[in-house]
């Protein structure tokens, strides 16, 4: 058996019984990275020496802790390069932060370190998390392990590809408009965006602060519950983190789904959705019915306005958040500028890539004098309507079910020159961010050998319901999706 293929809970079992060690597991993962990452290109930085040291420390701790060892002790993890890791370069896949070494850990890293998980590396992404394919990385494009001519999705494409290709046992990403769920769908792994406020954003490099949320990529639903339990919880360092109690999800997800009601939004099917994707998702819905789940038709009438709403709010917030990159405290700095203004504008002109510049311009225009009411304020009002659509649906159903993305993984280069077609790949995920809701994507089939994602979106703080539905489906389908990567 190749240890790199293990899930978190399988690895836990073997480690707990003393049948393997974190050092062996970590070496297996590092060997897998060595073997396939030249092709997949999931990682910006691989932290070989640190991983070895952490694995040794984990084995020593396990000898002390015995049965009390925390669930992620000694488990190799990959972290999206937008999450600050103390002493380990954190680039956001941008020239702006190419040499940035954070002096502190994000709260999620403190939590993982407290459990003793092993950091194997930092994963590639669209620059500053803006994109749906990793093609906007300033460094290189990550390949989909199912077909290396195709994108892994984005923006957390490296984190999704790393887990799909067994280059990490689990990973963390961030989701502002679908950046966890869409790449999870395209790479055939499980990805969850928790409710806004569930996970501290302290140390997550800010993109759009009212939408950003950190979440896990895992090989199955059980692992999703385990990682989620580890990273959630209120944090004094993030005033938007929520006081809600973190449930024991690994137990909660096993509860029978009989009697749960799921809603099928008519706006998420039909035109624009690949027929093979729709067929597979409808089969999954039939399977849920067979498990005793009640299925209802629902309507989310403002779906058609979600894209415009999102692409005003997210760039507006981004244009403000990215104002901090001034070349003074950290990051790229233009050389030989003649004035302060020239230093600022050249620093930013040189440091940011095309998509980031485009969004800064969109956001700045939408916020500028004379346009604020027409765009930003208008979008915030429509945001209220979109959230109300979900509230009304949730009076009837416990969760919404849909495809995660309208298509399977697209070819590298196919959408890069047309921002709107690229934005459309997040059509079914971004309303969840706009409304702050939790969502999970898990694989439900293949079309032409490429994975299809099934998405459940739930009520605020009802991740338990999503995990129950996803776990029940996964158990019933009994399929484990693994790419035939050499």
């Amino acid at each position, binding site marked *: 058996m190749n240890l790199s293929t293990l899930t978190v809970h399988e690895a836990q079992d073997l480690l707990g019984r003393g049948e393997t060690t974190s050092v062996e597991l970590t070496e297996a993962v590092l060997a897998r990275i060595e073997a396939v990452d030249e092709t997949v290109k999931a990682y910006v930085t691989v932290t070989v020496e640190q991983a070895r040291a952490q694995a040794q420390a984990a084995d020593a701790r396990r000898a002390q802790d015995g049965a009390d060892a925390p669930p992620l002790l000694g488990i190799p993890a990959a972290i999206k390069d937008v999450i600050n890791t103390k002493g380990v370069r954190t680039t956001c896949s941008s020239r702006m932060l190419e040499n940035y070494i954070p002096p502190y850990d994000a709260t999620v890293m403190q939590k993982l370190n407290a459990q003793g998980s092993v950091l194997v590396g930092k994963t590639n992404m669209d620059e500053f998390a803006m994109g749906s394919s990793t093609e906007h990385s300033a460094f290189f494009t990550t390949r989909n392990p199912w077909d290396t001519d195709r994108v892994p999705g984005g923006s957390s494409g490296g984190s999704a590809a790393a887990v799909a290709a067994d280059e990490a046992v689990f990973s963390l990403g961030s989701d502002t408009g679908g950046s966890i769920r869409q790449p999870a769908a395209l790479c055939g792994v499980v990805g969850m965006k928790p409710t806004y*406020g569930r996970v501290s954003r302290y140390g997550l490099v800010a993109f759009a602060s009212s939408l950003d949320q950190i979440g896990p990529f895992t090989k199955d639903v059980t692992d999703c519950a385990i990682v989620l339990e580890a990273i959630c919880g209120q944090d004094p360092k993030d005033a938007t983190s929520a006081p809600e109690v973190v449930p024991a999800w690994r137990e909660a997800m096993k509860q029978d789904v009989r009697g749960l009601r799921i809603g099928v939004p008519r706006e998420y099917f039909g035109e624009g959705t690949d027929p093979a994707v729709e067929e597979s998702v409808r089969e999954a819905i039939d399977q849920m019915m067979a498990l005793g789940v009640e299925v209802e038709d629902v309507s989310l009438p403002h779906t058609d306005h979600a894209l415009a709403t999102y692409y*005003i709010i997210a760039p507006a917030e981004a244009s403000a958040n990215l104002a901090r990159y001034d070349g003074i405290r950290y990051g790229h700095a233009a050389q030989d500028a003649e004035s*302060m203004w020239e*230093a600022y504008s050249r620093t930013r002109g040189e440091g940011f890539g095309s998509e980031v510049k485009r969004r800064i311009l969109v956001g700045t225009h939408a916020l500028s004098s004379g346009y604020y009411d027409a765009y930003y304020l208008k979008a915030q*009002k*429509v*945001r209220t309507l979109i959230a109300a659509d979900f509230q009304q649906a949730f009076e009837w159903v416990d969760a919404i079910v849909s495809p995660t993305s309208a298509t399977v993984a697209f070819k590298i280069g196919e959408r890069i020159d047309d921002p709107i077609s690229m934005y459309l790949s997040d059509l079914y995920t971004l309303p969840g961010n706009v409304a702050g809701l939790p969502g999970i994507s898990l694989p439900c089939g293949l079309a032409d050998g490429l994975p299809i994602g099934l998405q459940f979106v739930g009520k605020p703080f009802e991740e338990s319901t999503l995990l129950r539905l996803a776990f029940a489906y996964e158990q019933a389908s009994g399929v484990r999706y693994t790419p035939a990567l050499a």
Partner: protein
Amino acid sequence: MTDSEGSDSISRADVQHVANLARLALSAEEEERFQHQLSAVFEHFQKLSALDTEQIPPTAQVIPLKNVMRPDTVEPSLAEQDVLANAPDREGDQFRVRAILDF
């Protein structure tokens, strides 16, 4: 995507104005490309104007948290050298910046 210059709703001057507000140096090629792309993007945004939102309150943040307080106690901060470690330019224990005023 709009191709002809004439139908762009955003002018070259608009792009230059916004780029200046954002302190973002653009090449001539970028100005032209972003003019077309922004025009297409803002054309798409017109979709929202069809919705009547007169009576709808705006939503800035979805989770109803208000006035999050913490005890006013002193916590350790990052060490000075750690904070300065990434500075592109420094002098001693300070960030070096450009003169704001010309004399």
